[in-house]
């Protein structure tokens, strides 16, 4: 009997632990950046040329005119989004949006077949409809909406744009306005812009009205959502919430920030609702809100609801979108925004590994920019900020190049005691290097742990050796609890070695000679070709660009085979295979590339995205990423530069060249190739070339071949 009771208690305890574990293990604990999953949608698999031809054919049937330009532009725009790797299908966020869309369209299967919904992984609060029937919802929007009903209205609004063919309507309006010639009254361009924007606002109003009617007539979603929706759209740039006490979290009894880094008064957010919308494609918020309320009023009913299933499902979705937003902000080096958003979310998920690492990464990023003298690149003027962000921006602006790495290292070290991560350890060592490079040693820090009846002034009275003077005295206590830790001392000492290596590498990079070992396996990411023709109104020569890009990919494949170089190419032109893993890898590389282009070239730092690249690198068994592309430019014959050149030729009495210069357009083609070590972000081979010719295939082939050959046979 006794043993039975013990068993019962044991089971109960086990159940309790299991319950606690289940509660603690929210989906966010194992956050990974969003990936596409499932079968690739048809529109992703259809190549640009097929998409374009299909659309042209449809337009011909519908309007009795091909509208080639429109078909070309809309197909190309979608292609650019595909190339960004930020369009996602099959993720939990897609499923959420699809559920809401299914609810709206449950009685309209025909319409449902014509429209598809995808997620665009960007932090901007937006949703838009693309021709012919694609609706994109940004992760930024999903992170900010307050309930399912708001999203449902936004989807309805976008669906009306598709049903009413507003995209092509605007295209036709623009074309019509261009043709209008009335020199007396309407010749100036402003009139046409006003007319165009007026038409666009008309379309928006129609989408609002019909969208709301569609929502309320087909679903049971709540009527009173107008205020919330426009609040979300208007304040999309603001953090997730306004919360006080950000700076306090870093302080201890002795380590307290001086007044000079604290902003005394924060200005409230600026509310601009009744703006003049004459030059805007969208009507102002006040007008829209009133109109929507009027439309919604007749549909008011007591049994209407804000959520499709339950609040928790919505919250899970919203949290995932918010994590995504922080992820993007980190890639984009928007560190002040990411740290604040992560801190706000930590209230809900205090033990969350991703959020804590996001904070450490943000502090590390700010410290690196600060110590290298480029802080203004990532911290905007505090007066341009609103709400609590003003306090944060002021704080990070005022902390100097010594205070910032100390704060970042203190935070990262404390975190490393809870989380074991190579990335975290690397940034700690890097931060220690930054501190040491300012001639600060461990001896300069005090191990006094609390004040215990001694004032700060007294503590430092007569300590002439201290490097921290005046209002920086508090820095002495930054590592008060850590100076007894052998591990901390070891890391701090290790930093010196890393710094020396870094200097060596920097010195090597300055040398013009390629100094890497022969490389036989690489990944080429999105080889690009862009043709810009300034003589045309639509300056991007879309067809040429697309054709040349395919040619480029084929040439790289041939050259790699010839050179026996194992070169896996990730390009949007390969999506036609319908391979989701390939697209997922493309998306992952796109994230890495986003961070790469945001990194300041004047100093080195550890890449945040590398935490998610291990599996990819293992599968591809290489860490070398090849970036290659061409930019071809054609400008008008009679440009100022062209005339200047012509004049210079006139002086030299070089008449044939003068005539040639005057009557031929100016061509230029530039080439760029970079080979990057994905683990360190270091450029280990770079080639560039320029030609004052149209993009000739010999110039392109020659440069590409040399670059690839250089990988195998470095000098």
């Amino acid at each position, binding site marked *: 009997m006794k043993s039975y009771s013990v068993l019962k208690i044991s089971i109960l305890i086990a159940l309790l632990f299991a319950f606690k574990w289940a509660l603690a293990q929210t989906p966010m604990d194992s956050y990974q950046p969003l990936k596409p999953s499932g079968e690739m949608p048809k529109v992703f698999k259809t190549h640009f040329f097929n998409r374009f031809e299909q659309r042209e054919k449809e337009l011909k049937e519908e309007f009795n005119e091909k509208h080639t330009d429109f078909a070309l532009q809309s197909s190309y725009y979608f292609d650019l989004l595909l190339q960004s790797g930020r369009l996602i299908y099959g993720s939990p966020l897609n499923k959420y949006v699809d559920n809401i869309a299914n609810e709206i369209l449950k009685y309209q299967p025909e319409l449902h077949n014509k429209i598809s919904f995808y997620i665009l992984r960007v932090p901007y609060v937006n949703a838009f409809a693309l021709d012919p029937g694609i609706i994109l919802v940004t992760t930024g929007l999903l992170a900010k909406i307050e309930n399912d009903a708001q999203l449902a209205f936004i989807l309805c609004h976008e669906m009306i744009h598709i049903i009413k063919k507003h995209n092509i309507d605007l295209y036709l309006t623009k074309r019509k306005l261009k043709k209008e010639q009335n020199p007396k009254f309407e010749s100036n361009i402003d009139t046409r812009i006003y007319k165009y924007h007026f038409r666009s606002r008309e379309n928006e109003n129609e989408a609002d009205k019909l969208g709301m009617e569609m929502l309320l007539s087909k679903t049971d979603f709540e009527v009173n959502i107008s205020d919330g929706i426009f609040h979300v759209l208007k304040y999309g740039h603001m953090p997730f919430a306004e919360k006080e006490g950000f700076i306090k979290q870093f302080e201890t009894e002795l380590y307290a920030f001086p007044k000079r880094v604290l902003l005394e008064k924060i200005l409230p957010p600026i509310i601009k609702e009744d703006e003049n919308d004459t030059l805007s494609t969208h009507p102002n918020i006040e007008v829209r809100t009133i109109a929507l309320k009027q439309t919604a009023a007749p549909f008011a009913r007591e049994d209407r609801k804000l959520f499709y299933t339950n609040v928790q499902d919505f919250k899970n979705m919203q949290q995932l979108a918010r994590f995504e937003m922080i992820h993007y902000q980190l890639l984009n080096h928007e560190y002040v925004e990411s740290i604040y958003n992560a801190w706000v979310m930590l209230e809900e998920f205090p033990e969350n590994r991703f959020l804590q690492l996001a904070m450490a990464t943000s502090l590390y990023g700010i410290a690196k920019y600060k110590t290298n003298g480029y802080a203004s690149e990532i911290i905007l003027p505090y007066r341009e900020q609103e709400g609590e962000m003003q306090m944060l921006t002021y704080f990070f602006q005022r902390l100097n190049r010594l205070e910032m790495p100390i704060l970042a290292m203190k935070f990262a070290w404390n975190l490393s005691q809870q989380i074991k991560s190579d990335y975290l350890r690397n940034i700690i060592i890097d931060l220690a290097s930054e501190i040491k490079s300012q001639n600060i040693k461990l001896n300069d820090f005090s191990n006094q742990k609390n004040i215990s009846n001694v004032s700060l002034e007294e503590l430092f009275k007569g300590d002439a050796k201290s490097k921290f003077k005046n209002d920086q005295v508090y820095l002495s206590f930054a590592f008060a609890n850590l100076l007894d830790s052998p591990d901390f001392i070891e890391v701090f000492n290790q930093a010196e070695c890393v710094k020396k290596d870094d200097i060596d590498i920097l010195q090597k990079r300055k040398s013009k000679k390629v100094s890497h070992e022969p490389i036989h396996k690489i990944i080429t990411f999105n080889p690009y070709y862009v043709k810009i023709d300034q003589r045309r109104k639509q300056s991007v020569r879309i067809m040429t660009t697309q054709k040349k890009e395919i040619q480029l990919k084929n040439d790289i494949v041939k*050259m790699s085979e*010839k*050179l026996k170089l194992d070169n896996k190419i990730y390009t949007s032109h390969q999506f036609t295979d319908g391979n989701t893993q390939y697209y997922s890898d493309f998306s992952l590389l796109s994230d890495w590339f986003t961070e790469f282009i945001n990194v300041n070239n004047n100093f080195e730092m550890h890449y945040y995205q590398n935490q998610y690249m291990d599996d990819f690198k293992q599968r591809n068994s290489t860490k070398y990423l090849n970036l290659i592309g061409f930019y071809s430019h054609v400008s008008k014959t009679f440009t100022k530069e062209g005339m200047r050149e012509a004049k210079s030729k006139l002086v030299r009495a070089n008449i044939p060249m003068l005539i040639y210069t005057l009557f031929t357009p100016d061509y230029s083609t530039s080439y760029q190739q970079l080979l990057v070590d994905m683990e360190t972000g270091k450029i280990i081979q770079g080639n560039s*070339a*320029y*030609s004052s010719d149209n993009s*000739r*295939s*010999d*110039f392109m*082939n*020659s*440069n590409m*071949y*040399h670059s690839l*050959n*250089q990988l195998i*046979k470095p000098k």
Partner: protein
Amino acid sequence: MKQNIIKKIILLNLFILFWSLMYAQNAGYMGKHLFLKYNNYTNLYFPKTNNATVDYPFPMRHNFGMECIIHPNIVLGGFYTMGKTNFRRNDDIGIIDSQGGEIALKFFPNTYAPIGYYSRIGFEFSTSEWSIMPYYSENKIKGDFSNYVASVEFGKSGIFFNRFTYTLGAQYGLRMNLTSFSKKKSDSIYPQTRMFYHHLWSMHFGIGVLLF
């Protein structure tokens, strides 16, 4: 004399072939280093005479040989060169027939050889046989002389169909044995003077094929 020249040209081309194999380490154009080339150098010659007309108002030098990419930006070439031109002595027009060899280096400062704008330096050795029928005589006057010509050239070259190469340029040459300016006058002073001007400026058009 001709056999000697041909021997030298063959040796020169073998030397270029050797260089091409030695420098196969550099990429060349898509892995190809050696070109078979034909160059045409043309200038203008319209002398005013009462008795005769010129046969070659656009005198040409034909240049056959090989070029090898020895460095990413440098091409080495060796050529057999031949050409005919007229010369004027008083009111008579004579013919000069030249044959020889040339060695040249082309530099592509901003691009990989052989594409883009280049500067070329060359050295030519040739022998010229000349003859003229004076109006007062029924016998031809003949003679021969050597030419040592250093030249510079500026132009542009490229590849088409991934197999053929073209070159367009302007050449400025200086005949080093400046007999025309010596005080010692002889019959050959006229053809030699002409050869000086023949090399002084020429338009260059070349075409070639990539071998391997």
